[in-house]
């Protein structure tokens, strides 16, 4: 190990947003690892204040171009809680359908274009397409039909325009919905094949005693609602989020870090956490496929997040197909409501994990205050802990700095971090303390 005080290696590409990693060494051992997020703050909670509450789903969508539906869903559910709105079962199903579309486009993108290249030492999905043309083309098609679903239900794929407090501006056209059915029949099969391909990848041997946190619902795989559960036995309604989790502000990041309130420990959100808590509620094809590809019941290897992501891709296609087959365009598009003073919160499962929103509104229908806790800020502490453990063992095994930089990048990418709003130039900085 050389002992330069500071080495900068540009690394973390193929993530959504910009961050960096600082690795501090003391006497040849890793003392501390920090994930730095350089994302320029855009101050959404501040800019929402005083605006008509109806704008919230349109505005918060702009926090993330990859998972705008998650922001729309958490915001409308939180506002509906504040206003005492009960949506109809039909609106509820359509929201799940829209969420399926987002899981599909986001998961298919991450699996094929962002993450898979790591397992073959390729620089990009486009480069990987030279070696696996059929697999990458299939992945692009899988992504495309998720986006087409968002077009039909949401009006467009990025920043959909059809979501509103109380439901939708209008119900999707039945013919357009029916035209998606053959593509989604293909999608269940194609996603299954993609999962079988991904399961053959070679996964680093690394496991941690995570506290997995996700939503859980008795009747369905969690998306729009459920209780918050954890692998240490926590089981709480979303309204008790603040009693159990807290955000801390650290100097090296413009994203707040969330930790367990009492223990001040990290926790793990995302596909692996969801599958661990809700495996028996996966769709039939996804459930049997999980057994077939041998995903352990209590898998603690973060590199296998990509397998969990594939299984959720199968699930989302299969559930969407069932909703599409059942669809007719009768019924109301949205529930009417009246303004009242109040506050409400909600959590939904964004592709990367729990997204918590809370709003206070006034009698004139304006936002008084808002609070948004995205999944990546909750995973951030866990990513740092993983890096410390993984890089330490790799260092002990004699890995070079260049190899460690690659390992570092790959481990961060397993979380599919959405560090949106940044310059995409992530650096590993090495600091040697003496």
């Amino acid at each position, binding site marked *: 190990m050389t002992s330069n005080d500071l080495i900068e290696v*540009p*690394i973390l*590409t*193929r993530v*959504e*947003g*910009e961050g960096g990693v600082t690795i501090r060494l003391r006497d040849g051992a890793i003392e501390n690892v920090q994930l730095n997020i350089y994302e*320029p*703050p*855009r*101050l*959404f*909670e*501040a*800019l929402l*204040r005083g*605006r*008509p509450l109806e*704008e919230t789903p*349109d*505005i918060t969508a*702009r*926090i*993330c*171009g*990859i998972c*705008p539906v998650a922001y729309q869903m958490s915001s409308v559910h939180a506002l509906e809680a504040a206003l005492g709105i009960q949506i109809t079962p039909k609106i509820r199903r359509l929201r799940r359908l829209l969420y399926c579309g987002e899981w599909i486009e986001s998961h298919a993108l991450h699996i094929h*274009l962002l993450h898979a*290249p790591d397992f073959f030492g390729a*620089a*990009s999905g*486009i*480069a990987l397409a030279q070696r696996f043309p059929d697999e*990458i083309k299939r992945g*692009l*098609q899988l*992504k*495309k039909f998720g*986006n087409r679903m968002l077009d039909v239900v949401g*009006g*467009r*794929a*990025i*920043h959909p*325009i*059809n979501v*509103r407090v109380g439901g939708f*501006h*209008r119900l999707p056209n039945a013919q357009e919905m029916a035209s998606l059915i053959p593509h989604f029949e293909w999608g269940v099969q194609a996603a299954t094949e993609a999962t079988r391909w991904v399961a053959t990848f070679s996964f680093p041997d690394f496991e941690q005693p995570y506290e997995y946190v996700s939503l859980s619902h008795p009747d369905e795989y969690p998306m729009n609602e459920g209780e918050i559960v954890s692998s240490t036995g926590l089981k709480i309604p979303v309204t008790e989020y603040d009693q159990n989790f807290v*955000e801390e*502000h650290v100097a090296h990041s*413009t994203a*707040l870090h969330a930790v367990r309130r009492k223990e001040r420990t990290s926790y793990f959100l995302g596909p692996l956490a969801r599958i661990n808590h809700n495996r028996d509620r996966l769709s039939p094809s996804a459930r049997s496929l999980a057994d077939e590809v041998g995903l352990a019941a209590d898998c603690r290897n973060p590199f296998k997040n990509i397998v969990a992501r594939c299984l959720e891709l199968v699930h989302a296609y299969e559930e969407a197909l069932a909703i599409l087959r059942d669809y007719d365009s009768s019924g109301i*598009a949205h529930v009417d409501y009246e303004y009242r003073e109040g506050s409400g919160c909600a959590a939904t499962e964004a592709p990367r994990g729990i997204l918590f929103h809370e709003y206070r509104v006034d009698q004139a229908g304006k936002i008084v*205050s808002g609070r948004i806790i995205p999944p990546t800020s909750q995973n951030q502490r866990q990513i740092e802990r993983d890096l410390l453990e993984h890089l330490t063992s790799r260092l002990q095994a004699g890995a070079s700095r260049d190899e460690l930089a690659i390992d570092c990048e790959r481990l961060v990418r397993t979380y599919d971090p959405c560090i*949106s*709003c*940044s*310059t*995409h130039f992530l650096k590993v900085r090495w600091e040697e303390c003496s």
Partner: protein
Amino acid sequence: MPRKPRLAVFKFASCDGCQLSLLDAEDELLAICDRVEIAHFAEASSDLQPGPYDVALVEGSITTHEDAERIKRVRADSKFLMTIGACATAGGIQSLRNWGQIDEWVQSVYPSPDFIRTLATSTAIADHVLVDFALHGCPINHHQLVDILVALAEGRQPRVPSHSVCLDCKHRGTVCHVVARGIPCLGPVTQSGCGAICPAYDRGCYGCFGPSQPANTASLVSQFQSQGHSTEKLVPLLRSFNAAAPEFHHASEKLVILGTSSEGRRS
């Protein structure tokens, strides 16, 4: 055969959605890669090559001192610089800070505001460097992006239609919400490109593609006022994703200054 143009993608304060549009061109993506060389696109590739670049796509607005310097380096490295999306072309939704108190805003979001360094404004790329072409939208339309990249690869000047959303509604056969339902809709003054989706989904256009050229926003605002819409409702409509675009900016300022008196006239 001439060499392929070298393409770079750069991000400033934004949501990632506009550059994601390139990856959302699923049917064209691999073919595009045959026409242009992707030299620097961090969201898609770890192979980050240094400049100079033939074409730079710039997403996001300028909100920090560092970014105000970085955009100059991007400009110096790029022959043709194109802004993509409302953040880069007009400052984005984050330009609402231009009307607020930045210190108070930061304090309201972050428990330790001292850790945060940001400018009091969010500004368009063209406020800092020369921009060769601006593609509007929040988000941009990926079909337009693909057309432009093909044009550039062939050495043609890129073009996009400049009419308003209103005309697209007529093409689609969508009934006008302003006329039929008295709903405020920015379609008459908003740049085409989205496909007039909002009116087709039973809601007014909220101007996410920015002002069309020319846009008689003052006249449209008077129409809304004559239909009984209050300043309180119209100001946020004009001040959203393209709040700092000059035509929307001036119209919202005028409303704030004259709003009370014109509402008085109405009654």
